[in-house]
């Protein structure tokens, strides 16, 4: 299977504190990779290295390489904006802009170039359909995004990311702020989306990782302990630390 991301001996430091230790992880095309591990283990940090969102944090330094296809992400010549156009991100807390639903989805594309109304209408509708939100909002696209429920807002954020037509979707605990029904909807959506997008998802829920991912990577204190096909990982994990974690023997 084709590799979308490949990290080679990736280490990350917050000042002197090493948050990621020599991570070697491959992400494969059109699949879901789940990153699990206890709090502070580095999974969210790792996720953010994939689209250089760690750049926003002061005092961060990187060693090793992250390859996106055949582009080295941390090369000085790499265009960060271009990378972020091809890699979408959804955050833990739904964060739609205080604008209309339409404008939220149109935001990303509008930053790149201007569109005719017809073009943009089609683009917005397409993104909302892909994120299973269109039917619910088609009659109120000009209303504020903040009027939507939590689950709808999160799907809007997904639509917003999809509007950029990315190759990858990075999701940082996308359902931890949502109720079970909204969570289920988004999990269904992810399973549907992986037919066309590569998805990397950080999750605290073992069940979620088990349900929807193809590959699971277990992080602990900055180390990548085990990465394995999900069904094998949850039935017969190889590393005893993995087993201790997923069976809840230690938090």
């Amino acid at each position, binding site marked *: 299977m084709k590799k979308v991301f490949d990290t080679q001996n990736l280490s990350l430091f917050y000042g002197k504190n090493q948050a990621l230790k020599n991570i070697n992880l491959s992400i494969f095309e059109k699949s879901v990779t789940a990153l699990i591990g206890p709090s502070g283990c580095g999974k969210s940090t790792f996720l953010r290295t994939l689209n250089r969102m760690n750049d926003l944090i002061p005092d961060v330094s990187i060693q090793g390489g992250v390859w996106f296809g055949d582009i080295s992400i941390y090369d000085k010549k790499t265009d960060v904006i271009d990378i972020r156009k091809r890699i979408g991100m959804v955050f833990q807390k739904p964060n739609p802009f205080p604008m209309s639903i339409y404008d939220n989805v149109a935001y990303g594309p509008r930053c790149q170039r201007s569109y005719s109304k017809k073009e943009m209408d089609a683009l917005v509708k397409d993104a909302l359909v892909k994120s299973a939100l269109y039917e619910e909002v088609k009659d109120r696209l000009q209303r504020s995004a903040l009027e939507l429920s939590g689950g709808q807002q999160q799907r809007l954020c997904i639509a917003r990311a999809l509007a950029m037509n990315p190759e990858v979707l990075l999701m940082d605990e996308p359902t931890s702020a949502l109720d079970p029904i909204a969570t289920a909807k988004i999990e269904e959506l992810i399973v549907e989306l992986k037919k066309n997008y590569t998805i990397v998802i950080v999750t605290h829920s073992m069940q979620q990782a088990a349900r929807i991912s193809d590959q699971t990577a277990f992080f602990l204190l900055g180390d990548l302990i085990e990465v394995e096909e999900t069904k094998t990982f949850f*039935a017969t994990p190889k590393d005893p630390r993995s087993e201790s974690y997923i*069976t*809840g023997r230690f938090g």
Partner: protein
Amino acid sequence: MTTLIETEIRELEKNLKEMIDLVLSMHRDAKKALETNDTKLAIQIIKRDEQVNNLDELINESVLSFLATQAPVARDLRSAIAMIRVANDVERIGDYAKTISEFIILTKPLYDPFKLYINDMFDDFMKMFQMATSLFFKPVLEESYTIAAQDQFIDAKLKKAFHEIPKVVNTTNVMSLLDTFNIIRTLERAGDHTKNICEAVIFKLKGKKIDLG
């Protein structure tokens, strides 16, 4: 501090252990009752089988709840599934003790020369059963193979008895021979099911079903 899951698993294992002890005692008593033709003991053994069946039902339900509520993974998941398999085999083994007890109650005569085989097979079986069931709660991979191998002794005795039949059969002893051989076969089956318990141990450890022959 024990986790919630561990407490649940301990509860499940308690029931299984109770079932195993019960079945072991049934066979011990069956061996004794057979020797002394003790009908009263035989009736008790049959009553105990009811308890065994109840425990089997309980274990199945408990494992179902456990899977639903705890959503276990890895070794917890494998243990739970293996437990159902073991309960199934233990229940069958209990049935065999019941069958033998029914034989005693019907006061059918035994073919005396085969009594030796029967007693040896009882001993072989009970030893294997004890080891296999203990192994289940403290699993070690190699031992599941070695314990399973003990079944060959039981099989060997059946073969020997079987080969003797044509040499000794006549019109007067044919019925008692058949009946006695049935008991021998029953004990051989008990050994097979004990081998299944070893397979369950392997599944508990590895998540794979291996056929031990």
